[in-house]
């Protein structure tokens, strides 16, 4: 009886240990994979058309969803913000509220989440399917490094497209807020823009937003190419890898956002 309990506990601990070791090993594998991708990156820039093709798939094809979501987010922010601000007679601060939330947080984060589900999943599925159909092995047989030919251009395509998409998201959001705030509700046009410009500085507000979007771009692109490259070469494996990209990418964005915000804006509260 007693020994059975001990065996049961030992089994549980062993399973926990194995799971921990496996996840740490996977993390280490991902890190080494990331280093390898960066090492193979010169090819992605020497043969620039490969990267441009990936910017097309990751960036251009995400334009519509980013622009439309950005505009709706801005419109909703303007409606909700006006409702609260009006109670305190501060409706002229609507422009600052909307633009600051978009530039600092919502632009990079929501654009990153959309990017992970729109472009990240596509990258994972594509690389995963290439692995399943042994195209990657075939390339290696022909002495073409799949890291340089397939993975690095997709990684850099994502890294380049992401900040541009985030900036576009913020601009569309501000435009949406302008439509609702100024055109629909009737906040004064001059105070809307004037307070926005007075309340937002290029440094640190906008630059920090851009830094965030670059970091998210690196994180999501790396997760996407890694999950694709690491996928089990079966139909289920590819589907699981795609899911892991979206879930892991989204969680990585939110966690990184918290860490970056702590470093970027904590100092400003103490000034």
């Amino acid at each position: 009886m007693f020994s059975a309990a001990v065996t049961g506990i030992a089994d549980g601990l062993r399973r926990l240990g194995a799971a921990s070791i496996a996840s740490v090993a996977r993390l280490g594998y991902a890190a080494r994979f990331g280093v390898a991708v960066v090492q193979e990156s010169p090819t992605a820039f020497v043969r620039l058309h490969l990267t441009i093709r990936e910017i097309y798939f990751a960036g251009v094809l995400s334009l519509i969803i980013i622009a439309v979501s950005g505009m709706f987010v801005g419109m909703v922010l303007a409606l909700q913000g006006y409702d609260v601000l009006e109670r305190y007679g501060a409706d002229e601060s609507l422009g600052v509220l909307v633009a600051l939330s978009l530039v600092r947080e919502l632009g990079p984060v929501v654009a990153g989440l959309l990017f992970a589900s729109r472009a990240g999943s596509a990258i994972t599925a594509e690389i995963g399917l290439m692995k399943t159909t042994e195209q990657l092995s075939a390339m290696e047989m022909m002495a073409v490094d799949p890291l340089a030919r397939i993975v690095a251009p997709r990684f850099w395509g994502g890294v380049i497209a992401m900040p541009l998409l985030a900036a576009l998201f913020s601009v569309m959001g501000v435009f949406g807020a302008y439509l609702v705030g100024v055109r629909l509700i009737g906040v004064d046009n001059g105070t809307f823009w004037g307070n926005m410009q007075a309340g937002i500085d290029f440094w640190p507000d906008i630059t920090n937003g851009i830094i965030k979007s670059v970091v998210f771009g690196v994180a999501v692109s790396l997760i996407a190419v890694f999950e694709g490259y690491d996928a089990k070469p079966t139909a289920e494996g590819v589907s699981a890898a795609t899911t892991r990209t979206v879930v892991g990418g989204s969680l990585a964005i939110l966690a990184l956002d918290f860490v970056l915000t702590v470093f970027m804006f904590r100092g400003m509260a103490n000034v």
Partner: protein
Amino acid sequence: MNRSTIDLWVGIFVTIGLGAIVFLALKVGNLTTLDAKPSYRLEVNFDNIGGLKMRAPVKAAGVVVGRVESVRLDPKTYEAAVTLKIDNGYQFSKDTIASILTSGLLGEVYIGLDAGGDPQMLTDGGKIAKSQSAVVLEKLIGQFLFDKASSGAPNK
């Protein structure tokens, strides 16, 4: 899809993206502020700065002419020593008065400069001698109540 079409679309995409960043910088933010312009520093001491913060605007006649660069406590006089960064295009006379003001009841705190008539101008590192501290609302209300109590009692 052939390569030149992709190139065209990526070109459009990158242009839109960079245009968005420029829009954020110029229209949403205020990249065109005084930060980049050449400027000089002025020192001024206040008994009490109220809620003045770094980077608060410095205004003369309501026009922004500079920003507050630093705020610290003078350990000898226990006054607040404030460094102002003023745009080179604006010169102020030696008898300028600096006062801490609030725009509106709950608005931002800023420093207002009232130019005097002295022909000599302040130069880089110069010190504004006359200053007017922030009005602390609690003190003002306290004073008002005290005055009311002391002046109101004998009349009745």
